[in-house]
């Protein structure tokens, strides 16, 4: 037992750390998911039944923070740890000890975050966006713990990003030129630069919060000459690129899965790279589209509307390229491909509602309503989470040398796809009809769709147990996987054994 603990706490192996990241994310997914089910249970019918409004606000806040910082980000980093060395022909990450540290900050930061639920005055209750002055003057004492946790998560992310950039820049196999990098590696390279750009900004924002709360400064306090809108600008300068920090690795996963099961190379590799870079750049300069109703001069509204819509162009290029990759391919529908196809459908839809939200005048009706909730859940759950599900099924046989159970995988896919749409699609209607987000109780005209959404949420939530069961059982009982695993798989990782040797590539492969 002790040797087991020492092995896993001191490991510097990229595969072990990748597995640790993925397991942590999986665990957190059930924690954050339980909170979501708490929210949906309260919203099942009108009236207050299960939780009081303050705890409801804590639930929405913690659900958001945990799902973003504890699930989607670690999943993406887990994929990076596992896949980048395998895909570029390296023995490990460039900075293995730092890799260990950046992982081990994560569970403790998450624990500290979750522990706020049990503190006097309750957990942070001002939404994951932490808008001042609700989070400063009016925030519960546990807010300071949340700030510390966010700092730790930020340090962890920055170290991870430095590691990834260094690995990609210095450890590519001979002949692996930049324009031969697998798409997943490209997307993570851009993501890592985004992380280094934005995490210090978030750290700055929460540090100012800390000072306003404890040391008498007035960065965000109008009564002391500060500016509540300053917080929003700083927060969204972090917050919008953060969306692409989450999205780009998912795009990378999809760009690996679709060619494999289409038995056809990725269409338009060079435009895919260009689109990734362009999305990375644009993501930095569109933040205030989250603030159209916050109060902005007309010129600023105009600029942020136009810049935001421009993102649709490179994102569209990506979707068109995926579709053209499938076009005239030889398609087969194993579980990873099913998730990838569902991603293409639902992410395209989320992109379309994104364009709607970018229309500044109309955003005055959409903003802070359930329409927005529906939109970003389509991006994050129906889109990104599905991409990562697909990625897990895709690489699981390579990682652990055993096939998952295909039948259970398909059952997981179909149950999830049907229920997740019944869960989030009606929320568009709720938002258009006027239901604000983050409310624990609602008027009667919103009852039908909330009822439907709550039931679907429970089906979706419990469907994930099939996923968990499949992963756990298949590690020992799954059929042994071949080296190539998938008929159409291309790339260096498939030239190694399944599971790959401890130090991946002992001698660098040659790429022509």
């Amino acid at each position: 037992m002790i040797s087991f603990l020492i092995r896993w706490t001191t490991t510097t192996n990229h595969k072990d750390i990748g597995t640790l990241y993925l397991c942590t994310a999986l665990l957190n997914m059930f924690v954050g998911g339980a909170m979501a089910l708490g929210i949906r249970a309260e919203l099942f019918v009108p009236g207050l039944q299960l939780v009081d409004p303050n705890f409801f606000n804590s639930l929405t806040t913690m659900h958001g923070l945990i799902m973003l910082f504890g699930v989607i980000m670690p999943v993406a980093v887990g994929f990076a740890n596992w896949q980048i060395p395998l895909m570029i022909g390296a023995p490990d990450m460039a900075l293995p000890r730092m890799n260990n540290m950046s992982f081990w900050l994560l569970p403790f930061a998450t624990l500290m975050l979750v522990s706020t639920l049990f503190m006097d005055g309750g957990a942070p209750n001002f939404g994951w966006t932490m808008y001042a002055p609700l989070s400063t003057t009016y925030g519960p004492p546990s807010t300071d713990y949340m700030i510390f946790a966010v700092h730790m998560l930020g340090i962890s992310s920055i170290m991870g990003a430095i590691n990834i950039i260094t690995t990609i820049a210095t450890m590519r196999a001979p002949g692996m030129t930049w324009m031969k990098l697998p798409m997943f590696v490209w997307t993570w390279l851009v993501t890592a630069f985004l992380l280094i750009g934005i995490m210090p900004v978030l750290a700055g924002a929460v540090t100012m919060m800390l000072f306003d709360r404890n040391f008498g400064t007035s960065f965000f306090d109008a009564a002391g000459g500060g500016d509540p809108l300053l917080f929003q600008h700083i927060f969204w300068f972090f917050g919008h690129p953060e969306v692409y920090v989450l999205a780009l690795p998912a795009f990378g996963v999809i760009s690996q899965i679709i060619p494999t099961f289409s038995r056809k190379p990725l269409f338009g590799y060079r435009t895919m790279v260009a689109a990734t870079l362009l999305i990375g750049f644009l993501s930095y300069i569109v933040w205030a589209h989250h603030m159209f109703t916050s109060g902005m001069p007309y010129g600023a509204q105009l600029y942020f509307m136009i810049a935001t819509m421009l993102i649709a162009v490179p994102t569209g290029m990506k979707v068109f390229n995926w579709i053209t990759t499938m076009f005239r391919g030889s398609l087969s529908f194993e579980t990873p491909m099913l998730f990838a196809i569902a991603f293409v459908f639902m992410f395209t839809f989320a992109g379309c509602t994104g364009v709607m939200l970018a229309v500044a005048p109309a955003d005055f009706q959409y903003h802070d309503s359930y329409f927005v909730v529906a939109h970003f859940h389509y991006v994050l759950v129906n889109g990104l989470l599905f991409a990562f599900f697909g990625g897990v099924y895709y690489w699981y046989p390579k990682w652990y040398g055993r096939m998952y159970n295909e039948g259970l995988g398909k059952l997981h896919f179909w149950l999830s796809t049907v229920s997740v749409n019944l869960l989030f699609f009606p929320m568009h209607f709720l938002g258009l009809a006027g239901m604000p987000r983050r409310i624990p109780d609602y008027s009667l005209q919103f009852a039908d769709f909330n009822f439907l959404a709550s039931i679907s949420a429970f089906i979706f939530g419990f469907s994930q147990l099939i996923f968990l069961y499949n992963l756990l059982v298949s590690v020992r009982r799954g059929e042994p996987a071949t080296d190539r695993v998938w008929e159409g798989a291309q790339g260096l990782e498939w030239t190694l054994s399944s599971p790959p040797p401890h130090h991946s590539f002992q001698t660098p492969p040659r790429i022509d």
Partner: protein
Amino acid sequence: MVSLVRLLTASLLLSPALVAAQLNMPRGVTPVSRDIYDLHMEVIWIVCGIMAVVYGVVIYTLIKHRKSKGAVAAKFSENTPLEIIWTIIPMLIITAILIPSIRLLVDMDDFEAADLTVKITGHQWKWQYEYLEHGVGFFSDLSTPMSQVLGVDQKDEWYLLEVDEPLVLPTDRKVRFVVTSNDVIHSWWVPALGIKRDAVPGYVFEAWARIQEPGVYRGQCAELCGVNHGFMPIVVKAVAPDAFDSWIAKRANLPPKVSSDSGWTMATALERGAVLYDQHCGACHKYDGSGMPPTFPALRNSSIATSTDISRHIELVLNGVPGTAMAAYAPQLDDEELAAIITYERNAWEHDTGDLVMPSDIQARRR
């Protein structure tokens, strides 16, 4: 668990025949809301078109190019003209959306030549309206009783969307709103007027409406503003201009409310106090006075509510505690209401101090 199930079924049964669920954005009753609606529909049709094309191609591919049907993969992986086309087409679509959007944005930003200015101030958790030209002002509070929220009583048709005093506005006149906040950020959202304006402390933001049809229009606070964010609705009552003129004249000439101690007994004070406490204090200090310490202190057995020094209690409620969530209630409630609440707090939850606070006690301590 059994009680939980019973609670759920009870709340279901208590809901009256549900209002038919609305699917789309309301078209609204102002030029701006109607333009927003038209723009919204235009963009919806455009994105439906995009989705039809994209999904059409995907579905075609999924059916035609299956390996199980013997499809053999082609080898192509690049096509420059095609890629240029699908870069240019989205640009054109964006331009088509931007032109009407920019025009509407200009229109929404035109606050000139207003016939009437209403100042809207967000408070935790109520709205304050002031007709700046007429010297009329009042607070507008949720009027749905807690008993409906907790499922004891049947929920009304306008459950959570009803207030004690609505904002009355004239039709066919340009009303300018100036929006600000007294504490945290709120957002004044009435879908039918096409207005959503964040109320930010330290800022005054503008919006305008020219209501074209008389009626009652409802909305809610749209920015998370604390515990009772879900319980601060907005009700706008639009009436014909002459009806508005006579209403505002009557409202402006209302004699100032004089509080009187006559007939003020423990029974009346406690009865009113219990209702008012739930309405104004219960969200934070809890209906049983236990509070949510340390942010919202418990009143039950607190020194403030039980010590013999009543003036401390009155001062605290009147002026609030700067730098905390405790607001000043002097501007929000009248002497009788405050006397009732404080009397209730001093006698509820086995406090039984027997203190009866008189309206004149409040009057004397107002600054």
